[in-house]
């Protein structure tokens, strides 16, 4: 049973990690906790669902369209709600409040359009057969989720460390002002980050939608609470932290159900978060508390 629970935790943790990747990227570069990321995630799932039901698209196009839709939404949110606040001196929480407004707006409109009920991807979309590894039973989709999460994380780390754009993003994340002096187009970096981070959220949305069969307008809520926990756990704005934090939260939830009690699962995971913060205030990979927040 331990091995199966291990596999369960790996899959859940990967979903959390994938969601948190984009979340943490936006915080790292824009220094905004975007509480619209849950709505962005939801739109990704619906967009993926739409191409599958309308055009019979496969997994890859579904993910790509989901990413595109979420990316554009994220970019729009940045453009209309966050960007106007960048230029002026403001309360550092003002952009976060603006993203709450965006989330309310997007969710409300979506509910008007899609209704209140739940949807799922077609049954024949992914083969439901399970594979056995030792004592673990995994479906192809679960393996794909772990794989995609890992791949996207590696791609992001590679892009950030090895490409010109990645270096620009890192420079902006460090200090936007210095980056601007170095001739980096800071504004474009912000927009690019918003787009790609939201696209990651969209990918998470599509994969979650396929695996967990519960696509509805409020699907972003619960995962956003977890996403916040994950990026705190891993260190705000840290890419590795999002992945490690996601896995830790996944493992904490699964293992507390498996070996303690499902009644206290959330108390255990959030209690863990509380304690980790007290011991290591900046999270596992976090360092500079002074600058952020």
């Amino acid at each position: 049973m331990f091995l199966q629970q291990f596999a369960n935790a790996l899959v859940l943790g990967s979903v959390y990690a994938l969601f948190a990747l984009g979340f943490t990227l936006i915080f790292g570069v824009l220094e905004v906790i975007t509480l619209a990321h849950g709505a962005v995630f939801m739109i990704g799932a619906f967009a993926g669902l739409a191409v599958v039901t309308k055009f019979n698209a496969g997994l890859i196009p579904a993910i790509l369209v989901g990413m595109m839709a979420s990316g554009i939404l994220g970019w729009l949110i940045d453009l209309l709600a966050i960007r106007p606040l960048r230029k002026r001196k403001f309360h550092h929480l003002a952009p976060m409040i603006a993203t709450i407004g965006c989330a309310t707006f997007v969710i409300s409109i979506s509910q008007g359009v899609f209704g209140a009920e739940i949807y799922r991807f077609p049954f024949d979309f992914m083969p439901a057969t399970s594979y056995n590894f030792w004592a673990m039973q995994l479906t192809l989709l679960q393996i794909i989720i772990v794989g995609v999460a890992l791949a996207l994380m590696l791609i992001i780390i590679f892009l950030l460390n090895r490409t010109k754009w990645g270096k620009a993003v890192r420079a902006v994340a460090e200090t936007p002002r210095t980056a601007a002096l170095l001739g980096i187009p800071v504004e474009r970096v912000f927009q690019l980050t918003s787009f790609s981070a939201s696209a990651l959220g969209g990918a998470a949305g599509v994969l979650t939608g396929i695996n967990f069969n519960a696509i509805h307008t409020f699907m972003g809520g619960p995962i956003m609470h977890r996403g916040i926990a994950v990026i705190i756990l891993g260190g705000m704005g840290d890419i590795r932290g999002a992945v490690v934090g996601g896995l830790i939260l996944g493992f904490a939830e699964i293992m507390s159900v498996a070996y303690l009690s499902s009644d206290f699962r959330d108390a255990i995971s959030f209690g863990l978060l509380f304690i980790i913060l007290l011991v290591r205030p900046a999270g596992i990979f976090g360092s500079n508390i002074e600058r952020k927040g």
Partner: protein
Amino acid sequence: MTEFLMSFWQTYNTLFYTVLVHGMLALSIYITLACGQLSLGNAAFMGIGAYTAALFTLKLNAPFGLSLLAGGMLPAFVALIIGVPTLRLSGVYLAMATLGFGEVVRVVFLNMSITGGSVGLNGVPPKTELWHLLLVMGVLIYFFLKLKNSRFGRALEAIREDEVAAAVMGIKTTSFKVWAFVIGAFIAGVAGGLNAHFTFFLSPREYGFDFAVDILTFAILGGTGTFWGPLVGSTILTILPEMLRFLGSYRLALNGLILVLVVVYLPNGIITVKKKD
């Protein structure tokens, strides 16, 4: 005319009560914001206060004043215990730690039998009268007015502006922060107790993440430069959804849009203080 006013009051008195309670909650987060601390634990403190006050009334048949006092004291006490370690954190880290604390509180409510678990407590007698709310709000406004131009208020502002510089001025930053946290918890708890006694019912789900963020939104939208800001913010955000009812299912969309517009055009809040020559 009087008939119109009567029916208007009968219809909207609960809304007005809610405006006052939300105002208190906005003030409870304002006092921590006033010394630069972002605590999102106030929804949980409100919950602790609401349950405590309701249980004092239901189980002990305590007089209302005593229930309310207990509803303020217990959260204040909890704040004192968690405040000392927690307030070493700052900025978003403090916010998230307090959010985590709130989640733990919610799960505890859910699993205790005295709180009625997920079903909640029902049949809380309606004891809250308008004058109770006005009295508490009056006391709070008086308190914040007095605080503003006192040495304590200045110390809080100094800590908000620059904690290190404040410490070098001889201001005991940690104890001020803990006190602000405790007072905030007390206010939130009393507000919770008052709320429980005019809504007949309470359940753990009311005091979760979403409401914690709502309370923060009250304060930020209104502006945190002076305590009037959070009061204005909470009033607007409480009345707005009621006023937008005619929009049917899309009222929340407009609510969200208004929030974005206000923040984008008034990023420092609706009420801003300008010191002039």
